[in-house]
């Protein structure tokens, strides 16, 4: 039989796991599980590398992720693909790592919101802070930004992922990577949020005038 055909005849991830569980404790049963994990270790290594930009740290993180996944194997119920389940573990460990290193001094250019002084972003955010309905603000943001700008904003501010890492993760191939999208997002957001702020204030004024009229009557 030709090797190329046979090479594709392997078991699915789920079937490997099933066999490992069926033969758990028997000599040789580790073959199934090692085969399963070896299929995904490259994916984990690459992701950890992109999250850390340092191969030594990526190795430590990859080991942690795979060991933790092996430890928690009993909790995998097959509701999702094995690789998806593995992702949740990788995500947890990598984001934790980023949070733990976030207090360390940032490299130059990692926090563009603090550096871009030509846009008065703070005023917009303070307006938001005063009477916040996040879902309403998110609609304004979604209307103002393109898909990539939105993802970069969310991953950077919502998940705490440094911009350099986002550039790698989203495979952004423009010259400045994620930083360029944050800059353009800020420039688009500022007028959109200012307009929203003005509209909201106008509506409030109208309501209070109307309320005052009612009281007069």
């Amino acid at each position, binding site marked *: *039989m030709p090797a190329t055909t046979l090479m594709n005849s392997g078991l699915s991830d789920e079937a490997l796991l099933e066999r490992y569980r069926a033969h758990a404790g028997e000599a040789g049963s580790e073959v199934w599980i090692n085969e399963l994990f070896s299929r995904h270790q490259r994916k984990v290594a690459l992701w950890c590398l992109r999250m850390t930009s340092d191969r030594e740290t990526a190795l430590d993180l990859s080991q942690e992720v795979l060991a933790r996944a*092996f430890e928690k194997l009993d909790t995998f119920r097959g509701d999702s693909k094995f690789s998806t389940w593995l992702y949740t573990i990788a995500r947890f460990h990598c984001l934790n790592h980023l949070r733990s290193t976030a207090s360390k001094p940032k490299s130059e250019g990692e926090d563009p919101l603090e550096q871009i002084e030509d846009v008065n972003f703070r005023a917009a955010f303070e307006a938001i802070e005063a009477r916040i309905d996040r879902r309403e603000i998110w609609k304004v943001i979604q209307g103002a930004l393109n898909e990539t700008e939105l*993802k970069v904003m969310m991953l950077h501010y919502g998940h705490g992922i440094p911009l350099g890492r986002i550039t790698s993760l989203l495979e952004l191939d423009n010259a400045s990577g994620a930083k360029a999208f944050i800059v353009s997002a800020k420039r688009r957001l500022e007028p959109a949020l200012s307009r929203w702020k003005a509209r909201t204030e106008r509506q409030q004024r109208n309501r209070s005038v109307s309320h005052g009229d009612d009281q007069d009557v």
Partner: protein
Amino acid sequence: MSEKRLAENLFEPTPECPSIEELVSLSESPKSGGQATPIHRHIADCPRCQAELALLTSFQEAEATPEEQADVGWVVDRLPKVAEGQPARVAAEPEPTIWVRLRSWLGQFNLFRPLPVMAAIAALVVLTIGIRELTNTAPELRAPGQTGGLIMRGGQIGLLTPLTGIDSLPAVLEWEPVAGAVRYEVIVRYVDGAEAARFTANSSHTEWPGDVRALATPGRSLFIEVAAIDPAGNQLATSGRQLLKLGDN
């Protein structure tokens, strides 16, 4: 509060955002009956959930760029196996016990079995198992790669060439000769048991064919089985499935 902190507050998950586990699971499940459920609608509209899904995609679909290849290889080369164990042949399906066979045999007779008869059968089974345990010892398994004198217990062929803990495929595969054998069949299998290659040797050693060499890449698990065949084409003995894995030190 700093502008950054304000932004972080703004982009925190909403109460409607599903947990990560739910989100990734939902991303794989089709909408029930083709209708978008409230949670599916939320995910479609929520920039936070969309960013989460982008992160999942960045994991699932990532391919190393040429610049990343070396570093990824460096990491992968240093990752240990998750499960350690003595490489050994994968255990075959256990043979049915005497009790199972007896129960199966009795099952064909739809007879009323009074209690004394059942007790007598149970006693007989206990006695039989006891005798079996006293007289029977487990067949000796041979670790792959173990060398030494001829071991011919229960029709087993010992492989003399190490197949694990090696970085490259040895030039020759060698095994213990079997009296009466005129040829040997060497079968290479994938871990799922599917046959990958089969070739014949006229003596107790052979070179690896080129297609088997191509299959035996570092980190990949294969099984090797050698069977001794007599002039009538009957199988005299077999090595059982032996694990072959390169670069597994």
